[in-house]
């Protein structure tokens, strides 16, 4: 049987729970409104492009800044998607060629080590230095594509996808933040600004690129929004 005193007790408890629930909701609402206020005055945590940051961000030695980081990456992205960088980071296993990034004539293949196959190895034609004249092979002693087990594709990637890929050690050659920063001065990266006759340069100087690259990484390596272009 259900006693009236029990019923009263039960009602009292329910009322108490409701009051607590109302208080909880009010506190949460106040917190949200406070956060909204902070967000309104501090755009760094509310930037529409902010979406993600690199995995080892806690090891950063300076303050992060999503706006600066994302803005810097959008400059980096323009360089990485230029033919001088993207042509050797194709979506398929054939490198790209020319300012229109068409498939490399003769369809040389990546090979397991990224250095070509059989009589079609990269350095069979690409010399340690640029060949003279237009439509001749550009050169570098270390000319190659990324290897087959880590293709490091740029072609077709959005800024969001590429930013996330670049800081993923399973996709970036196991580079940490410091190694990524140093990679901006890698000889093959720098070779993009010495492409040989008849080829356009990346859309900014290497110095500007390097500054943007470092800013992106040092300010938190934030990935732009998936919709960023």
């Amino acid at each position, binding site marked *: 049987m259900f006693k009236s005193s029990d019923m009263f007790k039960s009602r009292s408890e329910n009322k108490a729970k409701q009051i607590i629930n109302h208080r909880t909701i009010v506190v949460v609402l106040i917190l949200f409104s406070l956060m909204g206020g902070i967000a309104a005055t501090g755009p760094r945590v509310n930037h529409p492009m902010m979406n993600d940051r690199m995995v080892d961000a806690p090891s950063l030695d300076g303050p992060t800044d999503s706006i600066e980081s994302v803005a810097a990456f959008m400059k980096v992205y323009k360089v990485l998607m230029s033919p001088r960088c993207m042509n050797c980071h194709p979506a398929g296993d054939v490198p790209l060629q020319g300012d229109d990034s068409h498939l490399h*004539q*003769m*369809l*040389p*293949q990546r090979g397991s080590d990224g250095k070509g*196959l*059989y*009589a*079609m*190895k990269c*350095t*069979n*034609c690409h*010399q*340690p230095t640029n*060949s003279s*004249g237009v*439509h*001749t*092979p550009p050169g570098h002693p270390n000319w190659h594509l990324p290897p087959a087990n880590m293709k490091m594709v740029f072609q077709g990637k959005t800024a969001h996808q590429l930013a996330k890929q670049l800081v993923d050690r399973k996709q970036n050659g196991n580079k940490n933040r410091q190694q990524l920063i140093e990679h901006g001065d890698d000889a093959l990266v720098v070779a993009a600004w010495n492409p040989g006759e008849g080829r356009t340069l990346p859309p900014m100087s290497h110095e500007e690129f390097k500054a943007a690259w470092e800013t992106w990484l040092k300010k938190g390596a934030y990935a732009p929004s998936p919709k960023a272009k």
Partner: protein
Amino acid sequence: MISLNVNGKTHQVDVDPNMPLLWVIRDVLGLTGTKYGCGVAQCGACTVHLNGDAVRSCVTRVSRADGQKLTTIEGLSLSNDHPLQQAWAEIDVPQCGYCQSGQLMSAAVLLKENPNPSDKDIDIAMSGNLCRCGTYPRIRKAIHMAAEMQRKKGF
């Protein structure tokens, strides 16, 4: 002075280090089996082996070959009896013949690295060697034949 080991013989050549290797091979050493086709590494007629790799000698500066081992078509075998040369003769691959030394040098690298190539392997390996006579089907057939000869004779 640049030192070249060509077909097992060492040569000292006094040339501009930027001279194309092809010029040295043909005009200085007199080995004219290697041909000039395009001059920009697009056709493969000038292919020779530099330390076993099929480099295009028209764009390779002779300085890159200094102290290195070179093989030209004249040195592919001692008695023109490399399996590829035998298969080429058996199938009568060449028409005009101009590109064929380059074709053979590229095919030799393929067979060295892949003794049992598929049609796809052959296409990948030979795609940098053009033939204006269109002898490609016979080239493919001859490479398969040479591969079989290699396997049977244990080359």
